[in-house]
């Protein structure tokens, strides 16, 4: 038995689909994956989805995606944890393959966020936070990020413009990407002067609702090799949690779930963070991006904005970050987001990233989290 490997990907462009529902999007992505990469044997279908249940559209969505595809001999599981839904699906799919239970799994996520009005979307995406703390108090996910942004800016003397350096980079990367939702370039001035969501954050500091589906095929390495698949290895992964209330943490701006998940993933892969030279992180806001980077330990805490502005994380930089625009610009279809991150890492490793291609990736790091780093997931990809 070898290690779990990614052999193929299928995905839709992220956007607003007024004429397609979640099942049609999932079907499009899965069919494209199976046709293009020749995946036919499917032992399991794991599906991430954040909001279909909350919207009243469909519960137990994986069973119904399997039914829509007429898959009746597959093990099926649904994972629903906001932006980390597909991270959890992939985490468990990897375990399923590593355990020897499955030889071939299709795993990913689908989200149809545009089916409800803004106030419902805002509440639905905020309910991953502790509901007594956030939902009851009229707080939202983004206003929680905003309050911690103020603490962070005060602590490290960050100027308003420096806070928003990441969205500018992410929109630059997405401007060349075919599957990204927002392909417009933006300037720091535009971010700062845009309508407020919860000051200091504006609409360009936060991700927008998006629709999309992304799926990947994970196989046992020996099985993949025997069947002639090209692949990227999943070398390690880790997950950890911390108090949901940022005020109960060592510091509200410390993402310790991320740093502990990172430690586990690196140990499993047997590498150090310095060997990683490609990042796909899940940051629904500008501030959370800086806090994630701070927690990865590539730089001193508080120095991430400066590293971004110096080009360290640019497409042609030392460690390219969110190479297709990340949640901000590629789009943030919650339950599918980590599957998109895997798609993007796969495209990079296979030299299929087109205008977004970065050279000589040794190891890729994929990060995802529930809410404001309550639970975190880190995957290390490489080799093949």
């Amino acid at each position: 038995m070898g290690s779990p490997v990614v052999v193929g990907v299928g995905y839709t462009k992220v956007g607003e689909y007024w004429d397609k529902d979640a099942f049609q999007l999932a079907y499009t992505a899965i069919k494209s994956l199976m046709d293009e990469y020749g995946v036919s044997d499917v032992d399991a279908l794991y599906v991430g989805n954040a909001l279909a249940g909350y919207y009243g559209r469909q519960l137990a969505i994986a069973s119904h995606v399997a039914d829509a595809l007429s898959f009746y001999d597959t093990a099926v599981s649904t994972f629903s944890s906001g932006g980390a839904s597909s991270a959890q699906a992939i985490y468990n799919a990897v375990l399923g393959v590593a355990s020897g239970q499955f030889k071939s799994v299709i795993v990913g996520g689908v989200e149809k966020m545009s089916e409800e009005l803004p106030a419902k979307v805002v509440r639905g995406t905020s309910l991953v936070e502790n509901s007594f703390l956030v939902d009851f108090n009229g707080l939202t996910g983004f206003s929680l990020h905003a309050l911690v942004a103020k603490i962070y800016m005060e602590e490290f003397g960050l100027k308003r413009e420096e806070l928003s350096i990441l969205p500018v980079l992410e929109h630059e990367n997405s401007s060349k990407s075919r599957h990204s939702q927002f392909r417009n370039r933006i300037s720091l001035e535009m971010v700062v002067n845009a309508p407020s969501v919860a000051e200091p954050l504006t609409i360009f500091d936060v991700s927008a609702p998006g629709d999309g589906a992304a799926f990947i095929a994970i196989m046992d390495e020996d099985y993949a090799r025997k069947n002639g698949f090209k692949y990227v290895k999943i070398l390690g992964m880790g997950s950890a949690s911390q108090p949901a209330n940022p005020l109960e943490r060592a510091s509200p701006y410390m993402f310790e779930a991320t740093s502990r998940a990172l430690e586990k993933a690196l140990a499993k892969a047997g590498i150090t963070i310095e060997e990683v030279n490609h990042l796909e992180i899940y940051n629904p806001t500008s501030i959370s991006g800086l806090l994630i980077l701070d927690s990865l330990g590539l730089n001193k805490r508080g120095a991430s904005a400066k590293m971004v502005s110096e080009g360290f994380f640019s497409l042609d930089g030392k460690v390219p970050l969110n190479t297709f625009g990340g949640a901000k610009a590629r789009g943030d279809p919650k339950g599918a987001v980590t599957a998109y991150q895997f798609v993007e890492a796969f495209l990079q490793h296979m030299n299929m990233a087109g205008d977004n291609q970065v050279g000589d990736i040794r190891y890729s790091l994929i990060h995802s989290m529930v809410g404001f780093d309550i639970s975190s997931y880190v995957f290390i990809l490489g080799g093949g």
Partner: protein
Amino acid sequence: MTEISDWIYRISRYRLVGSKCVNCGEVSYPPRLTCFKCGSEMAEYQLPRRGKVLYHTVVKSLPERYNRYGAYHVAIVELEDGTRVFGLLTDVDNPEKGMEVEAVLRRLYTYGVNGKIIYGVKFRPVIG
């Protein structure tokens, strides 16, 4: 939150009752079942009603149930015993850092066709 859970936690929300660790004394609000520091059990704990605003922002992207407001202030408040809590501000247009506030009972939102009113604590500037 659901109507039943809102009812279950009513005392905590009307009176600002949190929890205190029986082992290490750590205080939490909202109340917790176990201490986030040492994992021990927690007992009910009455928080002081006065404090000061540490950080505040205006929620402009509004969630369901709170969208009958145009926009509103939320804050991190440090209470007199040093406990920091998240909360809504009321009776104030331009809150300032360091502003003295006190907890008061206010209407928060209503439920569906029955129109059941949910009350809870908000923080207003200290009067006098």
